[in-house]
């Protein structure tokens, strides 16, 4: 990572400029702009279908979406050229809204393969099974996960809450620089939500950034964001501080839509 001189402003970790993306010819993102500085937590909210999930999937390199315009810089370099595995190795992590079940591959094997792929990319030695187990058990304890889950197939037969916790476990083990959380709060009861939030807060630090996509304010009671953005019809139409999320919770998204319409009318 580049170090900054004292008088230079710090380099953004992520810069998204005018991002347009869609699937099978249907435009979903229509010019997203977002700058995330190291250490910041950004919440992206918005009504269903506004493009929240698409946005984080595009950042993770999902091949189902086509980027038609705009650019994304990660640590100052072009992100969109990188294959998904290289984005992960460079420190981007997407916690899936719907984690995928992989029968026949144990959670332990999968996690160690992932961790060692990232380590080897950075010229670090692969962890052997013992060291890995010590590390992962520690994280599992913090997340109050049953160690037996390590020997189960990845997400296979896990409950919704177990799957989400498993995502946070992977994030804790891989220690990403940029964590993207796609509705990690959905389907969690309040106790599980607190544990997941703790796991995310553990990751916070001056070098790491978090972008969390959520539909509800609830998660933000436990993970207090530095910035809140409202995504609407494929664009970020409003940004603010944590209070914005509270206002959305109280008043819904209707007033945002009114604001957008008024702004568009004014522009005409």
């Amino acid at each position: 990572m580049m170090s900054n001189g004292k008088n230079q402003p710090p380099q953004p970790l992520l810069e998204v400029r005018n991002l347009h993306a869609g699937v099978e010819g249907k435009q979903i993102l229509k010019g997203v702009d977002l700058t995330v500085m190291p250490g910041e937590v950004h919440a992206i909210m918005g009504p269903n279908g506004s493009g929240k999930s698409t946005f984080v999937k595009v950042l993770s390199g999902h091949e189902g979406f086509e980027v038609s315009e705009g650019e994304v810089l990660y640590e100052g370099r072009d992100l969109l050229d990188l294959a998904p595995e290289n984005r992960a190795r460079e420190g981007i992590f997407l916690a899936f809204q719907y984690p995928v079940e992989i029968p026949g591959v144990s959670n332990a094997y999968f996690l160690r393969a992932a961790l060692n792929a990232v380590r080897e990319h950075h010229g670090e030695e692969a962890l052997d099974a013992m060291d890995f187990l010590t590390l992962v058990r520690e994280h599992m304890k913090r997340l109050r996960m049953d160690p037996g889950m390590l020997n189960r197939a990845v997400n296979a037969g896990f409950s919704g809450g177990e799957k989400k916790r498993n995502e946070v476990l992977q994030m804790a083990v891989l220690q990403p620089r940029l964590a993207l959380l796609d509705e990690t709060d959905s389907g969690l009861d309040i106790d599980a939500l607190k544990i997941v939030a703790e796991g995310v807060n553990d990751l916070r630090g001056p070098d790491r950034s978090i972008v969390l996509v959520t539909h509800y304010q609830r998660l933000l009671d436990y993970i207090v964001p530095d910035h809140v953005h409202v995504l609407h019809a494929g664009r970020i139409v409003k940004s603010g501080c944590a209070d914005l999320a509270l206002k959305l919770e109280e008043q819904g998204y209707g007033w945002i839509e009114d604001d957008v319409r008024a702004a568009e009318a004014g522009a005409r």
Partner: protein
Amino acid sequence: MTASAPATDVWADLFEAARPRLPGAGRVAGLRRKALAGFRATGFPTQRQEEWRHTSVAPVTGTAFEPAAPPSREALDRAAALLETLPPTGADPAAGGSIRVVFVNGRFAPTLSSRETVPDGVEIASLDEVLARPDEDLEARIGSLVDGTGHAFAALNTALFEDGLFLRVPSGTRLASPVHLVFLAVGGAAATAVHPRLLYLLEDDAQASVVESWRGEAEAPWLSNTVVEAWIGRNARLDLLEIQEQTLEALHFRALKVHQAEDSRFASACLSIGAHLTRNDVHIRLEGPGAECRLDGLTLAQGDQHADHQTKIDHAKPQGTSHQLYKGILDDRATTAFSGRVLVEPHAQKTDAQQTNHNLLLSPDAVADSKPQLEIFADDVKCAHGATVGQLDQDALFYLRSRGIGPRAARRLLLRAFASEIAERVQDPELREIARATLERHLPGGEG
């Protein structure tokens, strides 16, 4: 007059020429004559017949096969070298207690076999050996399950078999370690046919594990046409692992028929990896109540390989269980067929029959056909079947890649996960290790 008539005559001539040296007299000789007559009457199957719809026997009918000669000194030396150089089957004679029976070009090779540790009372002998002396039990059994009626290849085997194996585990005896059967093809320039005949007899409360390993270096067409007859007595248990790693010149036919008595257990895992053409016919009859059978199979096919698995399970008595899981990974232009017939007879109440066939196609030109047939004549039964044909799960691939695992490694991980289920289902720990090691050798490698 059918198109295969000339080929039928060729085999009849081969039979006449071989007759003086074929082992077995009296009843066995009669069995041979009858099987050949049946074969001549019906000829080779055509793809118009439902059971052969997916498999053309043209590679057999279009080739002039010679019967395998008894292996020369040279062939035996070559076989000995192959045993050293081929990946281990798990039948390492250095390992204590290992029983290994080697067949070279279809014939028992005593110098390559080790039977020292065979327990008293257990018989592990070549058919040629046992048919040379009077053995009424054996003579009555051979052909009693498979006499070739209605199956051209079983008929040819019945008429022409020259050697094979007789395994008898007496009542109450349990073999502590697996019996390894290694069938080596040491090829010459000529197209060669072998017809091994295997008999597994487990008396009441007996237990054994058997590994059949089919391998070799045949560079000319090699017809391996096997019949297996197995009797599993009351409360007896047989675990079988078949590893078919023949060369791509091989045409591998194997017909297995098993009769299971009350509370017996039969488990078979078949790893079908080599051969240009594979055809497996498995017929299990659960003759006693509470009998349980498990058939698992994995086909790895690429290039122009074709494999056809036909299973038939007769639930004749109540409380029987049959679980089948057949899987295939097909690349290039490979094709497979799976046809599983489960018959539940009227009084076979409380039957539990499951049948599953999953295929993974790695190429747009690969084809997998799947046909379940459930015929249920009892009302209190649990029967289920399911089949899938598809590609590698793209969502799973992306999930792995999004965690830093490269696309080749991710693909390999998913292929292994798909295939290893068959090895992991093997209950005998030694057989399971061998199955794992076999898959390890054949699943794609590569980093990245």
